[in-house]
């Protein structure tokens, strides 16, 4: 490691706030672009499953077999 | 669209048309063959899919339906919207009509306007016309067009009783001359000509 201590790594000779905030914002954005579609998919499947259960296990409106 | 009628006189063919909209199957398996002299009325309640079908047949809807349409003749399509510009006079509206079918002479246009009861209104800006007169400007195209196949979506909307009778006479003339008409209407169509009914619910032609 280039820095001697964790505190020095946080400080970065005064540039720490800039570097770390840049990395944090990036982390947030990355988590969002990976998590959002995942959540959309999960939620959609759960909703569809509920719909199927409500209609008595049948597969309503299933138009075509693939 | 220099399409020519097939030897058998077919103007329009559709096979296995199906449409789903907003999760509902509006119609499916509709087969349609329109020949010369055919008068077809598409029937169905509000929201049955009449307009959607007409737009597919005219070629305005190109995505989202199943089946195939083949057009063998020039068409005249009059939809729910009148394509009449309020800022232009009826005469200008017809002379510069955007359908680009043909170049009509001033005489032809005035005669067509007179035929739909707009004699004297040729030079009034169209937005100063009443609802029925506004639609009549568009319907004047029925007196100008040489297209053999007419697709009319509720042509009688907002037209008074004598106007409807005039229109029916015009349809009869067109049919007698070998043209054909596909129309939707919630009213009964009184044309002295065999009428085929297309029921959207069952997809059958009677």
């Amino acid at each position, binding site marked *: 490691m280039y820095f001697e201590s964790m505190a020095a790594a946080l400080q970065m000779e005064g540039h720490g706030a800039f570097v770390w905030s840049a990395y944090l914002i990036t982390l947030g954005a990355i988590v969002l672009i990976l998590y959002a579609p995942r959540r959309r998919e999960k939620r959609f499947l759960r909703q569809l499953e509920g719909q199927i259960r409500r209609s008595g296990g049948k597969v309503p409106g299933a138009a075509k077999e693939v | 669209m220099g399409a020519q009628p097939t030897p058998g006189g077919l103007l329009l063919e559709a096979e296995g048309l199906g449409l789903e909209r907003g999760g509902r199957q509006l119609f499916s398996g509709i087969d349609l063959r329109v020949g010369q002299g055919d008068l077809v009325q598409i029937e169905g309640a509000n929201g049955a899919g009449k307009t959607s079908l007409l737009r597919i047949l005219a070629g305005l809807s*190109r995505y989202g339906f199943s089946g195939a349409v083949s057009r063998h003749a020039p068409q005249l399509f009059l939809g729910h919207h009148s*394509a*009449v*510009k309020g800022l232009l006079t009826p005469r200008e509206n017809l002379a510069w009509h*955007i359908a*680009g079918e043909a170049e009509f002479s001033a005489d032809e246009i005035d005669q067509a306007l007179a035929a739909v009861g707009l004699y004297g209104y040729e030079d009034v800006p169209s937005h100063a016309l009443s609802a029925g007169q506004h639609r009549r400007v568009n319907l004047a195209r029925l007196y100008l067009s040489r297209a053999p196949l007419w697709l009319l979506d509720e042509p009688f909307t907002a037209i008074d009783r004598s106007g409807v009778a005039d229109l029916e006479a015009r349809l009869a003339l067109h049919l007698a001359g070998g043209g054909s008409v596909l129309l939707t209407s919630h009213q009964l169509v009184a044309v002295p000509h065999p009428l085929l009914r297309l029921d959207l619910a069952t997809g059958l032609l009677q």
Partner: protein
Amino acid sequence: MRVAGSAAFCARLLRRQLVLGLRRPVEIGNPLLFFAMVIALFPLGLGPAPDTLAAFAPGILWIVALLSNLLTSEGVFRSDFEDGSLEQLLLAPQPLYLSVLAYVLAQWLLTGFLLGLLSPLFALMLGLETGAIPALASSLLLGTAVLSLVGGIGAALTVGLRRGGMLISLLILPFYMPVLIFGSGAVQAALAGAPAGPYLALLGAMLCLAVALAPFAIAAGLRISVDA
């Protein structure tokens, strides 16, 4: 009745659009007055120091041209979509490429062309050096044509959405930016005594590209919009 050729049809369309744009003769003055007023805003907003104004005159005139294009592009197909004329246009036997060009040409004649013709006047109002005026007028004439074509794409893609306004600006403003850069660059070059030719040539090249390609995009956009 004669069958309408494509050229005749386009001429008719052009005439129709122009008449719609200027039903009454007074209205020819409207776009011009608009430019004059917006240009008058800049001294009010930026402060009236004559030398800074003159230095920024090319940029100001170009930004106004661009915004007035934005303002009017939105409506090119709007009313025709709403009253069903657009459906009829799509069904017309003439090639859509040409009809669409007629629409854009009409819109350009009423905005960019007029502005280009009158720009020397406005340039004088802002104190631009007279030497730069030919470059200004010709860059405006060329550049606004590109703007109108590109604006037409945005208009075609959004006309079916019943909410136009902001959205069309979002779509097309990024594409306007190169035109703005080369346009105001041409005038700035002329001001600096450098030849404006290369910039004008670039604008001309962009115009050729836009004339060749934009109508296809517009036509595709219109088909999609009418389908919706």
